[in-house]
């Protein structure tokens, strides 16, 4: 009898636990449930460096300008019109549209002035370099603000103005408090922000740390019901719920099971087949502003020889990476600037081995090297033009080339780059170049390549490349060839430096475009970096919602979240 009672009790408890909370689970149709990989770490805009904090904050704080989803050019957002440049005073005038903060107070020019002054005063990392060349900011009237630059800077309009504006009311007391501390910047960054005050489409409702974060519609959002950039904005959902999933496998199950409506997470191609067959799920494939590349350390021989680098570029088959390694979910790159960034991408670039077979690539590369004085005891191409196994290559001075290492991230961090390293090793070995691909932990790889420059070659990538091509200057200007600098290859070319400096102050977009194109041509001629590929962004949503705005980088953008609505 006692055993039977125990059994009945356990069975009842089990059934209650299995079905009980599920039955009463509360659902709201107009709540958009978004799956993210990690919990946002902070809602302090000045501290937030992780992707998920920035995703949440991008729906709360807003910039003056945004990117147009089609043209990718800046378009007015919190600003009413495009900025007006006055070359005589080297200043930009920006007119704000009527807008309110989430507490109902007006967004004014004073808030913009305060934001810039705060960044400059505290030298807030990640923001300071974008505003450091602004000499003065003035509120002309309640909705007009004027930025005086120290000197003409083209990136002001394309990069600086797309940064967030904060409310003076929210941040002034916090900044004043931070100033009284021993380390004001640290105090500012460590300020806990429980309810950020923004003017975006959503405001924070509740953050239950470790589990979920709720946003609700901001009734004062300036875009509500407005048509901005020919797009009528909402938001059309009452709430957004961010749910955290520890692994992609479980997140995919959550999407298929209807537990989330959007997986704001780049999905690996391996999951695609299972998702494509699901009627409840829609998959988006988008281009990405990204760059995955192989770089040589051109500070040292023999990598300082551009002919060797061109021969390497000839041997590397980018199409192979796209088709075989990335299963077709990527695009080959022929420049440092992705082709989708069409205004800045240059045409007429050297296409090295494009369209050639493996044998033709070997013939072309060995011809290039032979012409420069490289030699072999047994060359890769015999007298009759047939390919053969070569002996080790000799440098133009007659010495054998030493073995060198291509550093890659480890396969558990990025299997694609690790595989590409092995393929490049094989292709280089095919003409007697003694390369060895070696995976190295990502932190160590960055320190080696960026910190102390003790390397031969490396494969790295930028998953989120800015749409403004100023990164060309960061990557290849000689002034950035220093520890922690972005010129990791140590490329130095006075002609490139001159063009890069001119591009910074070229305020005429067409003139700047011409300079950027020339910079790309130089880089692709000297190939300190050999561009390899850029993966596509694979995202999946529930068919219960419609209105997603696809652009470079995917559907996870402010336009989508202002327009998405439940299917009737």
């Amino acid at each position, binding site marked *: 009898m006692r055993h039977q009672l125990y059994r009945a009790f356990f069975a009842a408890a089990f059934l209650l636990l299995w079905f009980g909370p599920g039955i009463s689970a509360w659902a709201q149709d107009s709540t958009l449930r978004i799956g993210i990989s990690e919990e946002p770490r902070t809602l302090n805009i000045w501290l937030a460096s992780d992707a998920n904090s920035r995703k949440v904050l991008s729906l709360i704080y807003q910039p003056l300008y945004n990117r147009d989803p089609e043209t990718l050019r800046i378009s007015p957002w919190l600003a009413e019109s495009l900025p007006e440049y006055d070359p005589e005073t080297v200043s930009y005038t920006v007119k704000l549209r009527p807008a309110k903060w989430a507490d109902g107070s007006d967004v004014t020019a004073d808030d913009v002035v305060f934001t810039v002054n705060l960044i400059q005063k505290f030298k807030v*990392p990640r923001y300071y370099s974008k505003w450091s060349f602004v000499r003065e900011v003035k509120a002309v009237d309640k909705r007009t603000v004027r930025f005086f630059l120290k000197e003409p800077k083209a990136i002001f309009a394309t990069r600086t103005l797309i940064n967030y504006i904060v409310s003076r009311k929210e941040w002034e007391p916090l900044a004043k408090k931070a100033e009284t501390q021993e380390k004001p910047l640290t105090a500012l960054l460590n300020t806990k922000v429980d309810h950020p005050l923004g003017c975006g489409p959503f405001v924070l409702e509740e953050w*239950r740390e470790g589990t979920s974060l709720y946003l609700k519609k901001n009734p004062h959002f300036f875009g509500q019901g407005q048509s901005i950039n020919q797009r009528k904005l909402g938001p059309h959902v009452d709430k957004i719920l961010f749910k955290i999933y520890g692994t992609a496998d479980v997140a995919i199950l959550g999407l298929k099971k209807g537990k989330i409506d959007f997986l704001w997470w780049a999905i690996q191609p391996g999951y695609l087949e299972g998702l494509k067959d699901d009627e409840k799920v829609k998959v988006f494939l988008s281009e990405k502003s990204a760059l995955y590349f192989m770089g040589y350390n051109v500070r040292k021989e023999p990598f300082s020889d551009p002919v060797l680098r061109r021969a390497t570029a000839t041997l590397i088959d980018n199409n192979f990476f796209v088709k075989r390694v990335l299963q077709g979910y990527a695009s080959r790159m022929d420049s440092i600037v992705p082709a989708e960034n069409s205004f800045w991408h240059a045409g007429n670039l050297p296409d090295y081995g494009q369209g050639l077979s493996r044998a033709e690539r070997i013939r072309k590369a060995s011809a290039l090297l032979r012409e420069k004085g490289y030699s072999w005891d047994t060359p890769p191409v015999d007298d009759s033009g047939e390919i053969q196994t070569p002996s080790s290559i000799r440098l133009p001075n007659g010495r054998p080339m030493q073995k060198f290492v291509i550093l890659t991230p480890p396969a558990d961090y990025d299997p694609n780059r690790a595989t590409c390293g092995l393929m490049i090793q094989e292709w280089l070995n095919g003409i007697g170049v003694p390369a060895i691909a070696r995976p190295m932990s990502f932190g160590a790889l960055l320190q080696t390549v960026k910190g102390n420059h003790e390397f031969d070659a490396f494969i790295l990538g930028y998953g989120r490349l800015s749409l403004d091509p100023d990164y060309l200057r960061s990557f290849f200007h000689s002034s950035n060839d220093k520890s922690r600098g972005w010129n990791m290859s140590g490329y130095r070319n006075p002609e490139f430096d001159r063009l890069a400096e001119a591009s910074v102050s070229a305020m005429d977009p067409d003139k700047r475009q011409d300079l950027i194109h020339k910079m790309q041509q130089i880089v692709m001629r000297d190939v300190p970096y050999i561009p390899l590929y850029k993966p596509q962004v694979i995202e999946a949503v529930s068919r219960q919602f419609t209105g997603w705005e696809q652009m470079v980088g995917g559907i996870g953008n402010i336009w989508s979240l202002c327009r998405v609505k439940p299917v009737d």
Partner: protein
Amino acid sequence: MSLQKLIIRRSLEILVIFFVILSGLFLLFHLAPGDPVSRMVDPTMTPEDAELLVSQLGLDQPLWLQYVYYVKNFFTGNFGVSFHYGRPVVEVIGERLPNTILLFTSSVILSALAGIFWGKMVAWHKGKPVDTWVTIISLVCHTLFLPWIALLFIWIFAYKIGGFPLNGMISPELWMDPDSGIFLKTLDIMHHMLLPLLTLFIIHVGSYLLIMRSSMLETLSEDYILTARAKGLNEKQIRNRHAGPNASLPVVTSVGLSLAFSINGGALTETVFTWPGIGRELIFAVSNNDYPLALASFLFISIVVLIANLVVDVLYAFLDPRIRY
């Protein structure tokens, strides 16, 4: 040596060991390649920005000075501020720790109780088919790859059959509902706990069962068991009152240490089930070079393990008067 002297000696040893751990962890983290700033691979971030960050994080100071501050701060109860949260690490750990304790303590206790019970039973039926099969199943459970079994359970019970949640500790929708009371919320946590608990139970129960079985077999060959039989006690009394409690001593030791080690939260379990515990934080902190958070987490775990060791040593001496060190 008296018990009092033993405790004093062990405590002093623990202090020395802890100081070695304190210094070792600092060196390991700071000498490992990479720093928090180098991981921020954003070409719009200038070297000057990086320098500002390095300075703000205090990483521009000489290593020995960082070490002095670190030791001083530790002994003054200041564990530092997380680089990514911007909050005191004690606060972050304090939020996550109860979740870890809830899940892992429950799983260790449940699996230990089951392991003791089943281990006792199979040892009693030594050589019979039940002994063979239970031993084989225990070995299989003990060697199962945790993420695999966790994902399998999620797929079967939460996705295919349904009813169980896929992940997390609570249903946010339910907790936002003003009508849901404390009973429903408690039930919701238990509902979310079931799958991770089942996974951990299956992983742990095998080892406890095998320890208990082996200890029970040894105990059953002791003279006092023979004496008990000679006294005419029935088999159930001999198994449950004489052999069982004595044989469970090694399991108690193992449980003590498991409880201590469970504080690190079985990072894999917490990751697969998105359980908001200290294990997931540890992975994040280590992979993002959040030194204060990672160091404080490891130190906290070290303290708990060292104290658990001391308690087990004392418990041993207390439970078995023959043991003296």
